[in-house]
């Protein structure tokens, strides 16, 4: 398992290639990338992600530990950035690997659902003179109820 919280961009291709490399017991590998969208009106210029150093790593570790307990996983990777990003930039990725696809899919969805609502990150969007904190969605909180 690897948990990374960093400001600088990460190399998705390199991370995905290295993940679970050489393992011949894992038949299913899933990656999820979260990417900055230009926004529904397309006028978002940049986004700044604030986080809570210390708690962020602790929260992500706890979520990943729980995924490893619930599913039969060969490996788990979580990378999440903070700081300034622009439309099209990669915000974060998770990767899961398991013998069969069901565990890898469920664990990846679990990681994303919890990471969205339980890891201390806050997004602020900037457009022209204006800026606004992204509001949490009820559907993201509701998504946790299935686990």
């Amino acid at each position: 398992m690897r948990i990374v919280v960093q400001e600088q961009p990460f190399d998705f291709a390199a991370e995905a290639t290295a993940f679970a490399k050489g393992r011949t017991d894992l038949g299913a590998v899933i990656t999820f990338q979260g990417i900055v969208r230009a926004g529904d009106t397309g006028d978002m210029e940049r986004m700044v992600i604030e986080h809570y150093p210390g708690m962020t790593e602790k929260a992500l570790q706890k979520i990943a530990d729980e995924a490893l307990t619930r599913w039969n996983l060969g490996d788990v990777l979580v990378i999440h950035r903070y700081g300034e990003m622009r439309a099209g930039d990669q915000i974060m990725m998770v990767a899961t690997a398991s013998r069969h696809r069901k565990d890898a899919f469920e664990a990846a969805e679990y990681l994303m659902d919890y990471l969205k609502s339980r890891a201390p990150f806050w997004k602020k969007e900037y457009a022209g003179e204006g800026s606004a904190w992204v509001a949490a969605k009820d559907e993201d909180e509701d998504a946790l109820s299935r686990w």
Partner: protein
Amino acid sequence: MALEILYFAWVRERIGLPKERIDTNARTVAELVEELKAREERYAVAFADISALRVALDQDLSDFSASLEGVREVAFFPPMTGG
């Protein structure tokens, strides 16, 4: 009791600082919030609706009824929007 209080996102912006050290006799998070609200208008505004807020005690998510016994760091922030 000395507590490190941290504020994030719009809570930080409304209160106007990222962290402060305070001395308090509050036994629960709710009591601490009442104490802060009584201080100044900006605190009263930030804590006007605690259903819109989350609290972490020593970097673990908690709730407003939780005890502060043994706690060193309290953080207030809006619901998270990671991912």
